[in-house]
């Protein structure tokens, strides 16, 4: 090859540079607020905002000391776990039933998924009117739990149904062929194979419940969940530890979602 060989021009050079800049802007837009919150959570100042006054961890200490926050956290955990277990169980039963082919199945399927499209504010108002009409007092274990299950169930079904539907029926036949009664087929084959998907669904349902705000604010009464407490803090008072609380909640939510995602991937590989 001669030294004077012309360099081939990269026809996509400008396109590549543009894409690079665009991606940078996109990520900044997504993550800048989070970074700001993180910085502010360590800011040694009683007023939330810039300029930064110096670093401190006292807001985190205050967060861990706040009785309100701990109570709300406990409420969110408890109601989230309960809603997750109930909605995942219902979704599992429904999905298992659907495998046998029900008359009008696609209509039922669509009816189950329709509430996903319902705006949260409408859902909240509808629930408020409904509970008022039924004379049910707003409380964590009645109205809030029902609201959360009601909200989470379609999502849980949506997550679980494809995995249950895709389950290889010949595995059940094989188990039956080897002497397993229907109950044993479920216990030794169907359940162990679906369990990762069920756990992933439950974690997903939990994060949905944990984050739920609009419906909850309508029906929560005196019991506060984390999002409701946040809202009250922002509206009612100056709360310099708010960014620290936000960071804690972000960490908890992200960890759970990643766990759900990882378990879900394992479930996909095994089926």
């Amino acid at each position: 090859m001669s030294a004077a060989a012309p360099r081939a021009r990269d026809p996509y050079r400008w396109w590549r540079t543009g894409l690079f800049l665009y991606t940078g802007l996109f990520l900044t837009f997504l993550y800048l607020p989070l970074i700001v919150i993180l910085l502010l959570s360590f800011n040694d100042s009683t007023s939330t905002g810039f300029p930064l006054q110096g670093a401190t961890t006292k807001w985190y200490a205050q967060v861990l000391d706040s009785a309100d926050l701990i109570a709300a956290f406990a409420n969110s955990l408890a109601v989230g776990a309960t809603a997750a277990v109930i909605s995942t169980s219902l979704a599992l039963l429904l999905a298992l039933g659907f495998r046998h082919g029900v008359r009008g199945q696609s209509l039922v399927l669509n009816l189950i998924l329709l509430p996903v499209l319902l705006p949260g504010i409408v859902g909240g108002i509808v629930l408020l009117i409904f509970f008022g009409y039924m004379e049910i007092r707003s409380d964590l274990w009645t109205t809030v739990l029902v609201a959360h299950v009601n909200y989470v169930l379609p999502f849980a079904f949506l997550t679980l149904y494809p995995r249950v539907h895709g389950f290889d029926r010949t595995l059940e036949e094989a188990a039956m062929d080897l002497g397993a009664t229907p109950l044993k087929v479920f216990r030794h084959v169907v359940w162990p194979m679906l369990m990762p998907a069920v756990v992933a669904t439950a974690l997903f349902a939990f994060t949905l419940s944990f984050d739920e705000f609009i419906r909850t604010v309508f029906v929560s009464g005196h019991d506060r969940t984390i999002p409701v407490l946040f809202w009250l803090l922002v509206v009612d008072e100056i709360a310099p530890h708010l960014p620290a609380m936000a960071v804690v909640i972000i960490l908890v939510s992200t960890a759970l979602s990643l766990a759900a995602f990882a378990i879900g991937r394992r479930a996909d590989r095994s089926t």
Partner: protein
Amino acid sequence: MAAEAVAVSIRKVGKRFGNVAALDDVSLDIRRGEFFSLLGPSGCGKTTLLRSIGGFEAPTEGDILIEGRSVLHLAPYERPTNMIFQHLALFPHLGVRENVGFGLRMKGADRAASARRVEEALRLVRLEDYGERRVDQLSGGQRQRVAMARALVNDPAVLLLDEPLGALDLQLRLQMQEELRRLQRQLGATFVFVTHDQGEAMAMSDRIAVMNAGRLQQVGTPAEIYERPANRFVATFVGHANMIEARLTGRAAEGLAEAEGPAGLRLRGIAPPHGATDGGVLAVLRYEKLRILPHGADGEGIGATVVEKTYMGSSLRFACRTGAGATMTADTPNAMPQRDIGEGDMVRLAWSPEDVVLLTD
């Protein structure tokens, strides 16, 4: 046949899905210790019949007896059968040993005895070193063997095999055929094997049932099926044959009959069993039973010209036109003297009357 020698008795079994008959009046007996194949094209009902024996389909008519007892009222988990599924259906969440031991565990067998039998079954299929593996760590052939061990460890009265070799490539397939045959002989077990591959059925079976469109066409040994097909379907589905429409012209000695084909071709062959003295018959002559001889050979046979020569590796195929205008095809080994015959050459075609089967249907 003595009743105690029958492992599975299919009696006038029918299965209708709406108006479609997947099985239509099927009756046959499968003997104990026999390698029995159900052979037919896809949709012929062979898998439906197999699944009916296993309890996964409920016949709408007739009865199925295993070891002399009707099993129609029994669920799959109550039947003395085990099945090897088309795609094996190994449990992906269990290891090799747990897969093989699944049946014993479901029946609540004694742990120590089960463990011993599992090892024995693994040894039987030559997988004694693979007990700890996960199923997805095995090759195709090893998975086949796990499926066999998982079924055989339960010592079934009948082992049902639903085209388990269908997904394998040719070499492995031949190897597994041999392996299955070895196991069946060694255990003296009754195997019912579904396949659409006639070569596979021939190579492995003691007897074959040929099925088409839900109906039984013929039951017999591979040689009977091949040499004496009962009807046009069997003659076409199994092997390659010259099929010559002819008219019966008279009976001859020793079960032979005379027939006349197109262009005055005179044929002598095995007479149809049900004494159709006059009328149309189908003369069936296997390609390889038709001998093709160089022109110079002695006066045996009839004169013909080679129209097309096809090279097939171990054999050669010659399509020939007889002097009178009939087309006949012959397969010969790829060897002298036929190797040197070319297209357009004059040849002589000869065959024995015992190799021609005259069919009425």
